[in-house]
């Protein structure tokens, strides 16, 4: 046995080590020093993120159940950076509201377990590993959504998330069993070679697709999204909308592009319809929201619709544009959620109308929020524009001109509601404006990192070419 092959699981083993270390630390740190645990966890994860950036070999172990390529390694790093920024943004909330009740470690252990599940999910080489990763990434998040046990809304969010997720994975499982009949195996490579277009394989694909669509919250599988985002703690909502969605998009793309490639002519139509409904419903519902968390929930649904425009391409260009867009989306959405978190922590206000006149009292926060919303809307100087532009190029390259036209219509609609928030912050005045406050160091670093990400990704183009090179291997 070649022990070196285990190094392919370097990231997973390191993260598992961190989880165990945190559990041990929880036992041995005395009660009045629990506040240090937050620093400890952030520090450990920072090291993990830095180590993850080192280069890694490609290959597969466990008879092909687990495999890693340059693209998968890159995507795990994207997830790492996202979670690191998220930790920085939620450190203050944990220290002020949670650690006093002796429950700080649970947050990190559950969050990291979920991330571990995502690692296994994106590296999966067969449906068993995929299913286990999917479950490991979902279940801890449901526990996290119900994390503020004293709040009724939080429990409601937890029960809605766990029941929807259980239904989704049950449906996906039934689909996998159909694909098992059709393909004769649960390994991705075997299924890819043996599967043919038949009623059975189409049924299996549709069920599997709808199971994953729950995770990405595509319309018509989006009903849990807004409620869970509103009820769950902001960090958890942010994690769901950024990291969880990103990982699910990645594995959906891998499944559609490799395993289900023989059914390309069928899933193209499905993705077309899903993209249209998701964009329109997400955008139209976002128009009428007043709570910022619900607003961001519907905006993230609409963004998922845009991502499908890259997936419909089905080639290397599609892979590269989707990964690039997810990378930008991670930074933009984390910035928006970070500002909401900072303001909610100090004042408890979460409505758009509460943000009236924010620029006069808190100019820096409003600028971060403005950049984030501009990036989500796709206004040229910031990164979001290029992400959307490449996605549209990918869809237009396959001749879906009508779809691209309707997507552009949707960008216009989305511009309206993103600008509503910007108007509230910059143009309106209010006597009850949120007073000036100073966030702590962690939150500041978290927000500065997201702003850097938004600006650098928009101006530094070689990164896209790097992703494009990496995505050759997927085919």
């Amino acid at each position, binding site marked *: 046995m070649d022990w070196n092959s285990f190094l392919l699981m370097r990231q997973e083993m390191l993260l598992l080590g961190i989880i165990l270390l945190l559990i041990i630390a929880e036992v041995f740190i005395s009660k009045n020093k629990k506040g240090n645990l937050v620093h400890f966890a952030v520090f450990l994860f920072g090291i993990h993120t830095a180590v993850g950036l080192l280069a890694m070999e490609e290959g597969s172990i466990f008879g092909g159940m687990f495999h890693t390529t340059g693209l998968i390694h890159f995507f795990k790093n994207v997830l790492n950076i996202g979670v690191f920024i998220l930790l920085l943004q939620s450190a203050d909330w944990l220290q002020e509201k949670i650690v006093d009740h002796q429950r700080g470690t649970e947050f990190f252990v559950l969050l990291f377990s979920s991330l571990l599940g995502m690692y296994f999910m994106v590296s999966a080489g067969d449906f*068993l590993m995929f299913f286990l990763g999917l479950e490991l990434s979902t279940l801890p998040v*449901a526990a996290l959504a119900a994390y503020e046990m004293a709040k009724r809304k939080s429990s409601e969010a937890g029960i*809605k998330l766990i029941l929807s997720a259980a239904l989704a994975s049950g449906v996906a499982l039934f689909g996998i069993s159909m694909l098992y009949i059709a393909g004769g195996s649960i390994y991705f490579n075997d299924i890819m070679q043996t599967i043919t277009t038949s009623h059975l394989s189409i049924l299996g694909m549709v069920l599997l697709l709808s199971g994953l669509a729950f995770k990405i919250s595509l319309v018509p599988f989006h009903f849990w999204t807004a409620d869970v985002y509103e009820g769950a703690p902001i960090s958890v909502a942010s994690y769901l909308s950024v990291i969880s969605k990103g990982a699910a998009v990645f594995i959906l793309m891998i499944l559609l592009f490799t395993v289900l490639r023989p059914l390309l002519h069928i899933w193209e139509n499905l993705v077309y319809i899903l993209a249209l409904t998701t964009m329109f419903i997400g955008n139209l519902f976002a128009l009428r929201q007043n709570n910022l968390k619900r607003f961001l929930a519907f905006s993230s649904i609409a963004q998922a619709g845009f991502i499908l425009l890259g997936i419909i391409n089905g080639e290397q260009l599609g892979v590269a544009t989707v990964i690039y867009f997810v990378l930008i989306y991670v930074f933009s959405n984390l910035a928006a959620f970070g500002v909401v978190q900072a303001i909610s922590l100090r004042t408890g206000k979460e409505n758009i109308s509460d943000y009236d006149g924010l620029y006069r009292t808190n100019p820096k926060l409003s600028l971060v929020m403005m950049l984030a919303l501009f990036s989500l809307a796709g206004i040229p100087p910031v990164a979001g524009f290029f992400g959307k532009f490449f996605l549209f190029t990918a869809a237009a390259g396959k001749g879906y001109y009508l779809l691209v036209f309707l997507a552009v219509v949707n960008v216009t609609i989305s511009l309206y509601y993103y600008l509503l928030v910007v108007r509230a912050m910059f143009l309106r005045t209010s006597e009850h404006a949120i007073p000036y406050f100073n966030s702590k160091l962690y939150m500041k670093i978290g927000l500065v990192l997201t702003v850097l990400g938004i600006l650098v990704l928009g101006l530094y183009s070689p990164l896209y070419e790097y992703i494009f090179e990496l995505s050759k291997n997927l085919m």
Partner: protein
Amino acid sequence: MIAGISIYEILTLTTLLFFIGVYGFITRKNLISILISVELIMNASVVNFVIINKYLYPDVLQGVLFSIFIIAVAAAETALAIAIIINLYRQIGSVEVDATETMKY
């Protein structure tokens, strides 16, 4: 193989089980009943995997192994859901769906 029963009959049974579960998930008003419906869906796939393995591809035990993992995961899922339901019950004194509608649209 079970004598006298073909794979079609068993697959019909599991498909029925699956759709009974989906129907229950949509129509039931009690959180525990919804959880039971989800279990039905999960178990339909468990039977599916075992039967497909046994009847169609008996050389490799992929399906049987898969079903063991599904049972374990389903148990974890149920435990977590029950824990959340108990916590909810402590706060609102009810396990009905109608009681969990403070957030809408």
